[in-house]
């Protein structure tokens, strides 16, 4: 029966004879469609020569033409050399040993070149001390192919020739006799450059050489110089340490030039029941704090007191908890004797002198062969800055540094622009170059000659690996030209090295890239005489005494951007910070308590991405208006942190102009600043954070145990094999009965496995960048990362504990019963989502686990994902149709989908969108297109090459020959790769190690990647 209900659309319908209703009944649309506007204009219609039929013809014809054209293959030209160089064989990589010494990062590296193009940076294994081959060094090859580089010298903003540059500059310099000109350079740590600059300043006595480190280690240098008479930094070999007490020193970061992680990791892996104990006092959560066995959150102003207390002073002024920790640390240090070491990040000469004193008998510290990677002197640099601003300095020549961007002094930029002589030697038209009269375009380190003495007695050479891409000339060559020398810098280095090499051949040293010699080389900067401690104390940093009100700020350099000289590098911008997991940004890190007090929030919005409040940061007369705030677990209360190196606007692509310039707060070149006012301002910042869930919630992801349990406990207790139920019987998941599949015989040939030692991994991220470089991983940009479409094949997960440690998390989870109540799971799991105030932290690199029983393979409808007998899970991109079933079925979430075409696409204007940037692509790995799934291949191109090399030579593969990009890049030795069918191999030992476990083993995927249980040394006294 039909319903009697009457449906109505408006009140009008209820009236009987509504005129509106009558009109509407006749018309389909309420308002007439304005067809006249486009059809009514007779004139336009008639004038148009395209009739409807013509239009259809055009459509049809162009479709047909496009279809036909698609069937025709393009004509590809091949242009061989006219005269081929001997060493270049197309398709075969050449390796050159060289050295990066850009003033911030110093390392001995190997450069892989293909057909004359450098494409990858690897560490030089021959170097006994190879500096810090970190993520930035790995990414430095891309900085050479930077479209923003200077193409040639400039005078007054106009392109000029080098001849004009030289003559005008010489005229200017000669005309300024008697007026003070400052040559402000980066630290070169170069014997030849030191000598050359000394000769130059001798010729021009009015030129004063001042070394300026953008992030200074001045106090440590002063203390060392006072004690040993050499301006250098003590070196530490943490592999020998039993107890490491770090007072505000980020020893795994960029502290004193960085590069300590390999030694540190060596000491962290338990051997014969022993591993080092690491106690960290710090305010920002750093990599060092995250890796420490015990982390104590303290304000920067407490560091000095802690040092005093450790040195035998009283613990007055410290909270009870900190005092207790200091007491324990001291006791452990004493117990460790010569194997204990104290390091300190306080910017205080007295504290640094204390460090040298306390470690005097330590086997960890090496003062006989100190490190030369920082030379700058704060007081001198301050004098220069003030001199420029008050007019006493008439000329400034900046080399490898960007004072206009990085000097904190207000008004420095204007004063610099008004100088009688302003010159810059830079690779890019940075802020200083933009304001300079003379700009000398310098080559990238991969294009030029050079030398370095990173550590005393450890010499290294820098050689070009490609012809200069632009009309550039190194600063040293320019100096030689100004001094009217006939020599090139190459000849000059050879002369300098004659005394270093002794009888050894130059070619041998060049091939090795490194050379050890006891030759004494003058490296001291002229004019840096002994510094009086008391004087330095007087000018020392007020922040360390905690005098003023407001919050304390600790500026830091983060893993990706460092001091900001490679800020235009998309790999580094997109690299997630190991601690915060946010990319493309810097932000104020703040404790949850402080944030709550100020009403500052971090929240996940509808698409899961992280948003945060802005804060206004004021220090003295400097104000940063809108600084995003990231709530950082472990941040000491009353303190905030902010990364340097962001907020550049000169010579940097729009997409890469991220963050705020924290150098404005770098008052007096001190990282620690007190009396900082932070208040919430309007607006929400959009973070590009790749990890949205921060806690492990008692899940069996990262296995942990303590050293005592590892030594004495039953392995089945601390590293159990998960069990599954079969016929109501619990059987281990590794048992063949628990297996749905028939096993393959993998005993013949190679079977690749990878082991990741969670004890050795510091989370530094070098592997992430190495993977990018090796596998042509695209950069997707901030907004895509926010949508969780980042393409990293290898990620480093970071977990916080929600109780004081992970063991307590697990206990809390296990103790839950019922839904409600004190132990109820509803409230309990909610609590466990929040990290603790000072949480335990663990890192876990996760890439494709190459499961022998891979869930992704079984669901692929087109068999694009398949398994190789060598253990690798293959991904045939050309076969993939993009259903993404595999990604959904992967328990490890390691598959990445190409949502867009990331190369040759203006929407993704990164290195793959320009000819220069594409030169970094690895020709052995395909560049994936839109609509296909991709993932870690376990660097099959590298394993295949190793196999082929062996076959060609007719020999078996030796252990250690098989490498992946990540295992190669890991200077900490956390990633081991090899063939487990070779029972003498390192990887086989790892497989049999009692610490070995597989990620989510209970799922039964049988991965070929294994992890080594993290062991913490929890011994308190």
């Amino acid at each position: 029966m039909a319903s009697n209900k009457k449906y109505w659309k408006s009140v009008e319908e209820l009236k009987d004879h509504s005129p509106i209703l009558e009109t509407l009944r006749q018309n389909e649309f309420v308002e007439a469609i304005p067809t006249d506007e486009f059809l009514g204009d007779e004139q336009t219609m008639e004038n148009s020569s395209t009739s409807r039929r013509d239009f259809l013809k055009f459509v049809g014809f162009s479709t047909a033409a496009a279809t036909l054209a698609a069937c025709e293959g393009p004509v590809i030209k091949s242009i061989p050399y006219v005269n081929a160089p001997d060493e270049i064989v197309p398709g075969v990589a050449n390796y050159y040993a060289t050295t990066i010494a850009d003033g911030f990062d110093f390392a001995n590296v190997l450069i892989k070149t293909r057909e004359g193009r450098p494409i990858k940076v690897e560490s030089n294994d021959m170097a006994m001390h190879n500096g810090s081959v970190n993520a930035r060094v790995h990414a430095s090859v891309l900085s050479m192919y930077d479209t923003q580089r200077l193409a040639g010298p400039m005078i007054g903003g106009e392109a000029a020739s080098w001849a004009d540059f030289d003559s005008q500059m010489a005229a200017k310099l000669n005309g300024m006799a008697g007026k003070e000109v400052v040559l402000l350079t980066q630290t070169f740590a170069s014997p030849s450059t030191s000598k050359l600059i000394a000769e130059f300043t001798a010729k021009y006595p009015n030129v004063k050489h001042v070394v300026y480190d953008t992030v200074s280690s001045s106090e440590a240098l002063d203390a060392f110089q006072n004690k040993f008479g050499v301006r250098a930094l003590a070196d530490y070999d943490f592999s020998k340490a039993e107890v490491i007490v770090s007072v505000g020193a980020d020893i795994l970061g960029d502290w004193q030039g960085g590069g300590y992680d390999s030694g540190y990791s060596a000491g962290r892996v338990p051997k014969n029941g022993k591993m080092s104990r690491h106690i960290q006092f710090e305010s920002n959560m750093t990599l060092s704090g995250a890796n420490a066995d015990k982390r104590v959150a303290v304000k920067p102003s407490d560091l000095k007191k802690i040092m005093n207390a450790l040195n035998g002073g009283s613990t007055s002024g410290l909270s009870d908890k900190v005092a207790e920790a200091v007491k324990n640390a001291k006791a452990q240090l004493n117990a460790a004797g010569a194997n204990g070491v104290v390091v300190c990040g306080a910017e205080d000469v007295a504290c640094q002198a204390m460090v040298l004193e306390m470690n005097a008998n330590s086997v960890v510290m090496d003062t006989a062969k100190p490190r030369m990677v920082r030379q700058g002197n704060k007081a001198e640099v301050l004098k220069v800055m003030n001199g420029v601003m008050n007019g006493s300095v008439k000329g400034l020549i900046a080399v490898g540094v960007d004072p206009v961007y990085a000097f904190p002094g207000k008004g420095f930029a204007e004063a610099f622009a008004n100088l009688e002589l302003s010159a810059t030697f830079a690779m890019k038209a940075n802020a200083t170059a933009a304001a300079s009269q003379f700009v000398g375009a310098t080559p990238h380190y991969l294009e030029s000659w050079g030398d370095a003495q990173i550590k005393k007695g450890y010499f290294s050479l820098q050689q070009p690996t490609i012809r200069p891409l632009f009309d550039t000339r190194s600063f040293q060559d320019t100096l030689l030209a100004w001094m009217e020398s006939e020599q090139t810098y190459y000849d000059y280095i050879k002369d300098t090295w004659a005394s270093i090499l002794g009888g050894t051949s130059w070619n041998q040293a060049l091939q090795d890239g490194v050379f050890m010699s006891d030759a004494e080389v003058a490296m001291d900067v002229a004019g840096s005489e002994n510094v009086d401690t008391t004087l330095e104390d007087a000018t020392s940093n007020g922040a360390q005494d905690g005098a003023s009100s407001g919050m304390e700020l600790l500026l830091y350099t983060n893993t990706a951007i460092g001091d900001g000289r490679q800020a235009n590098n998309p790999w580094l911008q997109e690299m997630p910070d190991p601690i915060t997991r946010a990319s493309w940004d810097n932000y104020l890190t703040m404790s949850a308590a402080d944030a709550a007090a100020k009403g500052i929030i971090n929240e996940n919005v509808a698409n899961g991405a992280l948003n945060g409040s802005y804060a206004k940061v004021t220090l003295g007369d400097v104000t940063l208006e809108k600084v995003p705030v990231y709530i950082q677990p472990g941040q000491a209360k009353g303190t905030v942190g902010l990364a340097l190196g962001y907020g550049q606007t000169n010579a940097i692509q729009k997409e890469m102009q991220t963050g705020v310039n924290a150098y404005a707060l770098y008052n007096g070149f001190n990282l620690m600043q007190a009396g900082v006012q932070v208040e919430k301002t309007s607006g929400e910042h959009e973070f590009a954070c790749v990890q949205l869930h921060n806690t492990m919630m008692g899940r069996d992801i990262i296995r942990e145990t303590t050293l005592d349990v590892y030594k004495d406990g039953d392995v089945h207790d601390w590293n159990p094999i998960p069990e599954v139920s079969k016929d109501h019987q619990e059987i281990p998941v590794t048992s063949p009965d628990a297996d749905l599949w028939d096993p393959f015989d993998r005993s013949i040939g190679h079977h690749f496995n990878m082991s990741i030692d969670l004890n050795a991994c510091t989370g530094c991220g070098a592997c992430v960048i190495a993977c990018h470089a090796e596998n042509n991983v695209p950069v997707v940009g901030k907004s895509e990362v926010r949508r969780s479409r980042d393409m990293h094949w290898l990620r480093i997960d970071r977990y916080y504990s929600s109780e004081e440690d992970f063991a307590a998390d697990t206990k809390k989870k296990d103790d839950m019963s019922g839904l409600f109540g004190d132990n109820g799971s509803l409230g309990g799991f909610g609590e466990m989502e929040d990290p603790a105030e000072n949480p335990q932290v663990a890192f876990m690199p996760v890439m494709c686990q190459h499961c022998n029983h891979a869930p992704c393979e079984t669901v692929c409808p087109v068999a694009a994902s398949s398994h190789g007998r060598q253990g690798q899970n293959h991904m045939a991109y050309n076969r993939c149709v993009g259903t993404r079933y595999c990604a959904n079925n992967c328990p490890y979430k390691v598959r990445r989908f190409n949502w867009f075409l990331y190369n040759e696409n203006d929407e993704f204007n990164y290195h793959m969108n320009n000819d220069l940037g594409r030169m970094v692509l690895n020709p052995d790995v395909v560049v994936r297109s839109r609509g296909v799934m991709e993932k870690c291949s376990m660097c099959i191109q590298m394993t295949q090459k190793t196999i082929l090399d062996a076959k060609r030579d007719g020999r078996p593969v030796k252990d250690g020959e098989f490498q992946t990009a990540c295992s190669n890049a890991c200077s900490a030795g956390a990633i081991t790769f090899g063939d487990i069918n070779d029972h003498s191999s390192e990887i086989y030992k790892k497989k049999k190690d009692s610490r070995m476990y597989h990620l989510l083993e209970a799922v039964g995927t049988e991965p070929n990647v294994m992890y080594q249980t993290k062991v913490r040394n929890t011994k308190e006294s």
Partner: protein
Amino acid sequence: MKKVTHRSLTTRLSLTLLALLLSFSTLTFGQEPAAADAVADAAPAADLGGDPAAGKTLFNANCASCHKLYAKATGPALFGVGDKYEKEWLYKWIRNSQELIKSGDARAVAISTEYNGAVMNAFPALSNEDIDNIIAYTYTPKPPPVVPTGATADAAGGGGGGISSDIILAVLALVFLMLAIMLYLVNKTLKRIAVANGVEYEDKERAERLPIWKAFAQNQFLVLVSAIFLLLASGYFAYGWMMQVGVDQGYAPVQPIHYSHRIHAGTNQIDCKYCHSSARKSKHSGIPSLNVCMNCHKNIAQVGDKTYQEGISEYQIDYNKEIQKLYDAVGWDRDNQRYTGETKPVKWVRIHNLPDFAYFNHSQHVTVAGVECQTCHGPVEEMEIMYQYSSLTMGWCINCHRETNVKLESNEYYAKIHESLSKEYDFPTLTAAQNGGLECGKCHY
């Protein structure tokens, strides 16, 4: 209907005639340059004080790397050198030219200057008699360019073959035409006789009979079957056509320099890997850089006469001009025997193009597996113009991997695999496929 047949026959005939005409005209063109070159150089008056045959051997052993008889090479052309210099001088020069230059001999200095001070090896071991023999040999007159009799014969033979088949066709066509005319005439005559005899001639049957297409349309079964057949057939051909999209088998583009693999790899038996040396150690076989060409072509500025004629007549290519193209590209000044430094890199057209997503390594196949180049590239030594011999499709790769055995025995790398295989499986052989050569990731990454 008859008319139509007739017309087609006419077309056929005229086409045949045209073909005949054309083939004759090419022949005429082919003969022209041969005739022009047939004028041989007159041999100069010779003072044959030695044995030219012995001289030839000596010349080839000692002099030929730098001297030619009739053209400049590293050193001057030696034809009739005895007329320019007296024997005594030549003995001195050949035994030790440097000494002669040092002594300040005007002519020696002159010749040294002319050749940019290029040093001629000293031949102290040559006796006067030897030198006489060589000088005698230098009087060998330039042989008249070989009249390309062989080529003409070939061309004529080839042409003749064409003519004969055309003639047969024409004769056949004629016979058919005659038969058709006869049939028509007979039919007409018969009709006329019938009419004359009063027989009623009417096409009754034709009027009543259903036209065949109508009958076909009415038979639904037949329509269905033929529709299915047509669909299947068109599907089959469409599939076949689509499968060859992007497969460039037989692709033989015109190259900027006409390089003949036939002459280099075939006639001269140069090993493939002499020029494509990186095939041994790299994934690329490598297009040789021009300096490799100059290893030989520094001395070979002209091809032999026979080869030259062959090029003209068979391929319409002047090989000497092609060598000159090489000189232009590499910047070789042939007259002064030196490099000018002005280079013009050659833009070869790449013939074998694998897609980016397929990884192929030459050294794996050439060095490790010992596969002959010809296995994939075909009879290169017979190719005047290089073309893509194989299809380079994935099926083609895989077939070979299935059939080819891995060389286990001689390679230490395989020792362990070989041992365990023979122990466990009693496998005498292992194909590439069984060794993982069919796994996706081995070629796609």
